[in-house]
C-alpha cells in the first residue's frame, strides 16, 4: 500500500493505540494535520506548545499510557522543551513529534528552523531525525517502545516536511531491532534472597517507595510486602499514592517538607528498603547524615541510580513489580526461619507519628492548609490532584492524603511552575469519569492561564483551586526565613488579574472565596459543576509551609510545624 509519510505516521499511531494527541499546528506539519482531520485519533488543540507536552505528561501519569504531543518546527518545537525536560526528570513516557524544515533546507537557517534534536539532546531518553520516509514506521515503533520500557522517559521524533509528503510502500508489522536497549527486568535471585534475609533480621526497618512503583504498577505488591513484614513505609513526593496514606504503617512524606515522623524514621532506621526512588536532594537533605545507621537495599530499574548518591549494600536492578513479587516469595520463605521482633521500633515510630502530626494554627483566617484539607474531605480522597509548583504543591502533598495510585500529578524533579493546569487537562481526558483538581498558586497559574481556553473548548470539568496569596510564596518564604524578610521580586499582588473575571472571560465558571465559611460550599459547587471552574481562594498572604529542612541541612533537624 502506497502511503505518504504523514499517512503512515497517523496509521502507526493508531496501531500503537494512541487515543489522543495534544498539539498545535504550524507550517511544516500541515500535511500531518491534514491526515489527522480524518483520523479517529482525538486532537486536543492547546494554546501554547509547552502545555501540549505537559498535558501529554499528565495524561501519561493518570493513565499509565504513553502521552503524545505534537508541534511545528522552530518556535513550536522549542516551546516543547520545558515539557520534555519535565517528563525526563520525572521519568514519564511521552513521545513528542515535531515538524522540521525540508531535508534539503536543514542547516540553512531556513524559516522556522531549529535544531530540536540537538537542543533536546540532554533531556530526552532518545530522539530521531527522520531522514528516509521508509524508516518512519520502525522509528515510531521504537519511539513508543523506548518511551515506555525500562525507566520511562520522553522520546522526540523530528519529521522534515518532505518526509511527511513523500510516498512509500508501507508494510506492517514492524519488527523491533534495538541491540543497545535491553533493560533488566528480573532482579538477581541471590541479591533478592540476601535482601529478604536482611529484612527479616532488621530491628528498625523502613521502606521508602518512589515514583517507580507507579510507573511499574507495583502498588499491590508493595502493599503485600508491607502486610507481610509490618515494616513502616514512607513515600516520596513522586511516589504519593503508591501506598495508602491512611494506613497505620504509613509515616508520611520524607524530606524537605516531609513529616517529622518520616524524617526521624529515616535517620534512626537500621535497614532501608528503597524501591523505585533515586535519593533526590529534596529527600535526603545533607547526605552525610542521611540514614547513617541503615543497611541500604536499593531496587531500581536504572542501574545508574544505584550508588549515585547513597552507598548501597544490596543493589537490585530490575522492575519494581517483578522484584517485589520475587522479594515477597523470598521473605515468606525467610520468615519461616524466624522474624526479628520489631515491636519496639513500631512503637517508637507510632509515638513520633502521634507526637508530630502535620498541623497548622487554626486562627479563623482563610488558610491554604484548611482549603486542601476540606478538598480532601469533600472528595473523600478520591479526586485526581494535579499541582503547580511551590507552596501550593507542598500543601497539597501534605494535606491531601492519596489512597489510590495515579492520582497525584506533580512536577517533582524539574519543579515546573505552570505544569498543573495543562497536566490536569491531560488527566481529565485520560480519565474522564474522575474529579480532577489542579491545586494552584497565583504565580504558577498565570504562566499557563491561556489553557483555560483549551479546557472550556473541550468542555472539561476540571477544577482549578488557586491558593492566591499574591506572592511567589515559596521564594517569599525563603526570603522571610533566610534573607531577612527582603521580598525581592516576589510580590505579585499588583497586576494579578481578577481570577473570577479571567475565568468568565474564557467562558469558565469563577468563584471567589474570602472567608473560611465559604470554603465548603465553593468546593462542592466546583466539583459538582460540569463546567471548567476556577476557585480563587484569597488565602492568608504570609502563611508558610512547615515543617521544613533548610537547604543542605540534615533531615532530622526540621524547623516549624509545632502547634502550641
Amino acid at each position, binding site marked *: 500500500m502506497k502511503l505518504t509519510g504523514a499517512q503512515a505516521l497517523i496509521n502507526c499511531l493508531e496501531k500503537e493505540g494512541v487515543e489522543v494527541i495534544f498539539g498545535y499546528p504550524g507550517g511544516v506539519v500541515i500535511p500531518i494535520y491534514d491526515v489527522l482531520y480524518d483520523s479517529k485519533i482525538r486532537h486536543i488543540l492547546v494554546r501554547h506548545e509547552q502545555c501540549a507536552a505537559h498535558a501529554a505528561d499528565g495524561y501519561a501519569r493518570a493513565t499509565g499510557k504513553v502521552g503524545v504531543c505534537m508541534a511545528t518546527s522552530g518556535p513550536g518545537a522549542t516551546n516543547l522543551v520545558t515539557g520534555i525536560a519535565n517528563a525526563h526528570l520525572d521519568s514519564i513516557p511521552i513521545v513528542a513529534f515535531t515538524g522540521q524544515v525540508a531535508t534539503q533546507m536543514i542547516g540553512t537557517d531556513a524559516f522556522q528552523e531549529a535544531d530540536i534534536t540537538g537542543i533536546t539532546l540532554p533531556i530526552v531518553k532518545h530522539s530521531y531525525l527522520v531522514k528516509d520516509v521508509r524508516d518512519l514506521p520502525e522509528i515510531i515503533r521504537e519511539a513508543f517502545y523506548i518511551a515506555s520500557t525500562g525507566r520511562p522517559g520522553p522520546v522526540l521524533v523530528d519529521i522534515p516536511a518532505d518526509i511527511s509528503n513523500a510516498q512509500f510502500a508501507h508494510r506492517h508489522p514492524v519488527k523491533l531491532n534495538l541491540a*543497545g536497549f535491553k533493560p533488566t527486568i528480573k532482579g538477581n535471585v541471590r541479591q533478592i534472597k540476601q535482601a529478604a534475609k536482611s529484612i527479616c533480621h532488621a530491628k528498625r526497618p523502613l521502606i521508602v517507595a518512589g515514583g517507580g512503583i507507579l510507573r511499574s504498577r507495583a502498588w499491590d505488591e508493595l502493599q503485600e510486602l508491607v502486610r507481610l513484614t509490618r515494616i513502616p513505609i514512607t513515600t516520596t513526593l513522586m511516589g504519593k499514592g503508591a501506598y495508602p496514606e491512611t494506613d497505620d504503617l504509613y509515616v508520611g512524606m520524607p524530606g524537605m517538607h516531609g513529616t517529622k515522623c518520616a524524617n526521624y524514621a529515616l535517620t534512626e532506621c537500621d535497614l532501608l528498603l528503597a524501591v523505585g526512588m533515586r535519593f533526590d536532594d529534596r529527600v535526603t537533605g545533607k547526605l552525610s547524615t542521611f540514614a547513617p545507621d541503615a543497611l541500604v537495599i536499593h531496587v531500581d530499574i536504572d542501574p545508574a541510580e544505584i550508588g549515585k548518591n547513597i552507598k548501597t549494600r544490596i543493589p537490585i536492578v530490575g522492575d519494581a513489580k517483578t522484584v517485589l513479587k520475587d522479594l515477597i516469595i523470598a521473605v515468606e520463605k525467610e520468615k519461616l526461619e524466624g522474624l526479628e521482633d520489631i515491636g519496639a521500633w513500631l512503637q517508637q515510630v507510632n509515638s513520633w507519628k502521634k507526637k508530630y502530626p502535620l498541623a497548622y494554627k487554626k486562627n479563623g483566617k482563610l488558610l491554604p492548609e484548611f482549603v486542601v484539607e476540606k478538598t480532601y474531605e469533600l472528595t473523600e480522597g478520591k479526586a485526581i490532584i494535579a499541582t503547580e509548583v511551590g507552596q501550593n504543591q507542598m500543601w497539597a502533598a501534605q494535606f491531601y492524603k492519596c489512597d489510590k495510585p495515579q492520582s497525584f500529578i506533580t512536577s517533582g524533579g524539574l519543579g515546573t511552575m505552570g505544569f498543573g493546569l495543562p497536566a490536569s487537562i491531560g488527566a481529565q481526558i485520560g480519565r474522564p469519569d474522575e474529579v480532577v483538581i489542579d491545586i494552584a498558586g497565583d504565580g504558577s497559574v498565570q504562566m499557563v492561564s491561556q489553557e483555560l481556553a483549551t479546557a472550556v473548548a473541550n468542555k472539561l470539568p476540571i477544577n482549578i483551586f488557586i491558593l492566591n496569596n499574591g506572592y511567589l510564596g515559596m521564594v517569599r518564604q525563603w526570603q522571610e526565613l533566610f534573607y531577612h524578610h527582603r521580598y525581592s521580586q516576589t510580590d505579585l499582588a499588583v497586576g494579578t488579574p481578577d481570577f473570577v473575571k479571567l475565568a468568565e472571560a474564557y467562558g469558565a465558571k469563577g468563584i471567589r472565596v474570602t472567608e473560611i465559611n465559604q470554603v465548603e460550599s465553593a468546593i462542592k459547587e466546583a466539583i459538582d459543576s460540569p463546567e471548567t471552574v476556577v476557585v480563587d481562594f484569597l488565602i492568608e498572604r504570609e502563611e508558610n509551609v512547615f515543617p521544613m529542612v533548610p537547604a543542605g541541612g540534615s533531615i532530622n533537624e526540621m524547623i516549624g510545624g509545632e502547634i502550641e
Partner: protein
Amino acid sequence: MKHTLSVLVDNEPGVLTRVAGLFSRRGFNIDSLAVGPTENPKYSRMTIVIDGETHSIEQVTKQLHKLINVIKITDLDPEESIERELVLIKVNAPPTTRAQVIEIVDIFRANIVDVAKNTLTIEATGNTNKVKAIEEMLAPYGIKELTRTGKIALSRGQKSG
C-alpha cells in the same frame, strides 16, 4: 588511574554528539576519544580514555549504557589489551642535526613521511608511553607541529571484548 573504555556504538550520525554531550553534561572529562567503523559497518568503536581518579568509572559506564545507541562497553585491562596511538610530528631538522633526528626515528622504528628543506615529518605508532618518549626525544630539536589520534585499543586473545 586512567581507564580505557572500548565502546561499541551504532554507526549513525549524531552518536558521537550524544556520547560527547553526556560526558559534558555529567561533568566527566575525556582524556582522549578515537572513533571509527568496525568490521561490521553497522557499528563504530569508540576508544575513550578517562581519568578514574576524578570520576567514578562505574557512574560513567552506567550513564553511557543508558544511551540507546551504545551497544557494549568494555573497561579494558591494560595487561590484557593492546593499545596504540599514532602521532605525526613535524620537527626542525636542518642539515646540521638531520642525521641525529633520523637516528632517533630509527631507534623508535618510526617513519619519515615528509621531507622539507629544514624539517622532517615523522609518523610514529605505539602505546602511549612510546609516543610520549619519541616526543620527548625530538623536543630538543624543536617540534613545529604535532598531532595525535588518541588511543585505540582491543582486548588480547580470541574473545571479542
